[in-house]
């Protein structure tokens, strides 16, 4: 099943939003029901181990591009998330692994799968940022193709669309809030050249050159 939408973030820039969405910590904080979101080091994602790791980790939200750069999503890498999706009395917790298939500002593609007991899902998702027409904000166009299996599949048909819409809405509202609270991107985005010819921010932003802007 496919669903999509556009969410507009006010009073921000594509660079700022891109930076925010590059930060697993900010994404984790903004995703409703997400207990942790961590880079998967080895082949297998062991969720018990990851949970332990998450409890020991001391990561904080920041607006410091240096810090974000350290932990930013990387193309081709896998990330594990423990997500509880709450729909009334139905509250499955999904062990989810997502691969960043493509990360090329202003576009990111990811695919993943998750399971919870006898239920599971597979999804592929993409997101693109653009300046809004009034130039005052950023439009996030997103689309997701998801397949749901097992017990929740029958229920899925009915609830997935509105529930997904609600999760996305809450996610971006939180992102907007965090952007505002942290002042992400307020650090200049054009300082200091690096050895590979890309600025630090360029690297975080996944840009190949520091010249273009939308």
């Amino acid at each position, binding site marked *: *099943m496919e669903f999509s939408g556009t969410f507009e973030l006010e009073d921000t820039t594509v660079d700022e939003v891109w930076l925010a969405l590059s930060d697993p910590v900010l994404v984790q904080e903004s995703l409703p029901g997400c207990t942790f979101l961590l880079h998967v080091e080895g082949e297998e994602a062991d969720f018990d181990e990851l949970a332990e790791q998450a409890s020991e980790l001391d990561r904080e939200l920041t607006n410091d591009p240096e810090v974000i750069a350290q932990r930013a999503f990387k193309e081709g890498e896998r990330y594990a998330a423990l997500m509880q999706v709450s729909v009334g009395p139905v509250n499955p917790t999904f062990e989810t692994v997502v691969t960043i298939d493509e990360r090329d500002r202003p576009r990111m593609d990811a695919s993943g799968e998750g399971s919870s*007991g*006898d239920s*599971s899902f*597979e999804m592929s998702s993409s997101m693109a940022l653009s300046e809004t027409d009034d130039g005052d904000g950023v439009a996030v166009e997103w689309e997701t193709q998801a*397949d749901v*299996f097992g017990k929740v*599949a*029958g229920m899925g*048909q009915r609830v997935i669309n509105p529930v997904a819409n609600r999760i996305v809405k809450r996610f971006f509202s939180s992102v907007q809030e965090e952007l505002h609270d942290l002042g992400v991107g307020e650090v200049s985005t054009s300082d200091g050249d690096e050895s590979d010819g890309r600025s630090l921010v360029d690297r975080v932003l996944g840009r190949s050159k520091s010249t273009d802007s939308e």
Partner: protein
Amino acid sequence: MTVDSLDPDDVDAADILGSAIERREDPALLTGNAEYTDDIQIDGMLHMAVVRSQYGHAKLEGVDTSEAEAMDGVHGVYTYEDLVSDETPGGGSFALPTAWLLDSLKQVEHPVLASDKVRHQGDGIAVVVAEDRYTARDAAGAVDVEYERLDAVVHPSEAFSDDAEQLHDDAEDNVAFDWEIGDAEKTADAFADASHTASIDLDNQLLIANAMEPRAAVADYNPGTDELDVAMTTQNPHVHRLLMAGVLGHPEHKLSVRAPDVGGGFGSKIHHYADEALVAWCSMMHEGPIKWTATRSETYLTDAPGRGHETKAEIAMDDDGNIVGLRVDTMANLGAYLSTFAPAVPTYLYGTLLSGQYDIPAIYGHVKGAFTNVPPVDAYRGAGRPEASFLVERLVHLGAKEMGMDPVEFRKQNFVPDDAFPYETQVAVVYDSGEYTKPMDEALEMLDYENFREEQERARDEGKYLGVGFSCYIEACGLAPSELAGQLGAQAGLWESSLVRMHPSGTVTAYCGTSGHGQGHGTTYAQIVANELGVPYDSVEVVEGDTDEIPQGMGTYGSRSAAVGGSSLVKSAQKVVEKGKEIAAHQLEADPEDIEFENGEYSVAGAPDRSMSMADVAGAAYLAHDIPDEMEPGLEATSFYDPDNFVFPFGTHAAIVEVDPDSGEIEIERYVAVDDVGNQINPKIVEGQIHGGIAQGVGQALYEGAEYDDNATLMTGSMQDYAVPKAEHVPEMETGATVTPSPHNPLGVKGVGEAGTIAAPQAIVNAVADALEPFGVDHIDMPMDAESVWSAVQANATADGGAEPGSDDADHGGER
């Protein structure tokens, strides 16, 4: 017209056959004294639950049963490896057979538990045996299965596409069979010469039977005697015994299958499923009683659905409106494996009915069967015949429209004429008897057809859209002459067996190899036997559904019980009468030739005072003090009745509907059914069968459909989402009857179980098409839910620049 029931005590013995008496099975059912399979309680009984697939199609990478095994109350968890192990009981195939073969059929392996691959969600992966049903279910949930998901296919057209995932290694391109009937060349010529044609593209959706009682089995193995008793929800215990013996490798004579009270079947309890065999195996494994009762969600995943056709078809007419040819190309969904009778349904039960009630000189049908990731598809009430009848009647509706003729006139002109019977069609069957205009005329009178057309005109002017639809159906039932069945691919004879046993006191037990599950056989069979023997109705007890009691049998499906089982009882009873005649002759000191038998009395011709009752003769037979030399004592007879031909019930159903183009809602204003099912043994039971059949046909037309997503996950997996019609969804039905006895059986009966289901859908679809003619809507696929009707109106309004509501555009469409 409603049939009123009679108390059997108020019916004269001579009138018992044909009387609408109350049903003798009802008191037990009405007081809670009935015994359905799940009601059976045996001391020490354990419960089984089945672990089923999370996916429509996947490879099994691993099954971890350890957590389930460790749970309190769990007695065992088994996978395919355990079944086939030398250490465990049984040495059978552990694979389900198909009992109908076709030349081109790919017989794929169907293990009772998946070994390496799951091909539909209902596929079992492991079974759990535990103290109680809750624990068994808990433990099933604790079995951890690792899958590698594969792409799935749901519809035949997808299954045949080039990039489709193949289900079985030995079924290339997912083709299960490729079959044809009729004369392709002759039909091509007819189309080439025809002056008019009409065509249709349609889906006949998958339906789920939804018998109110879910499938269940209780198996009890006795290690001392090696006897394995299975009580189960079955329509045909003897067939299940035969097939299960092979699946388990347990000798047939040590296996007993019994159908307790069965809560409806509609085809879904004919087939041999994995679950019942697994219960039996677990019982051998644990050397004691085990129960399994499907939850409703399991029946949705495992009960064989029916229908599932994608069809392109066309009809050809000459200038005068005579049908000159009919051509059909169908892709049939067979699901993940071949179910018991699956190959017969879209072939011989479908293609042979493509002539409908019409005299069509050239017919060609081509059917390609597809393996897909839905549950194995098989017979559901009507089985093949509803698909044929739907198609023919939709084409006739469109043909009439193409000709600019009234649909009634067009039909009548093309009916097989009364003097043409027995009529041999172009598709390999010979219709026994018929007068097709009779039910049509009666239906027209009940409808007041002429007036309706005027009312329809007036209503359209007011923006109300009424329509009438006809369905002149034919069905072939009473399966079947064994030799013919064998030629067509059946792996069994389709005779029926019975035993009529007089007791010394003159009462009777009649045993029959059919197995009723709501049809009232106890009542109708007693009517038949009481009539033949001339004994009181209450003196006859009927026994069915138990392989230990009844010598042999083939079961109840395909509307065969009265025609084949009933006829077998007649034959057995006649043998009893014949033997009695010799005893009476001996006792009355007359020549057997001179003994007459009437109303239960043997008398000497010309000397009515020299007589003996049936009861006296029975007493004499068992006393055996004075019976003819060489004669064995006792009075009973067994027969194996093999019919000469199918029987061909027919009739006309008509619906009047009002359609609201704004909301897409359809209101059935009237539903008229005139059926000719031959002689009626109990008209009230016949009426009930017709009612119930129509309700399921209405369900198909308007409400029901099994929907799967692209991954073959069932989306309509509960009654919350699959619309089983409720009381308010089924219209009041006006029934009428004509009687054209079948010449092929001693009762002159034709079969009634499926007639309503076969007849109803096209009556309603034709009515809706008639109502929406001003909008240029020719066809809406079933189920015609409100949205599909609304969308069809919208689509046509847009596509045709908006056929004005109210304008009557008779030439519209016809050729699409």
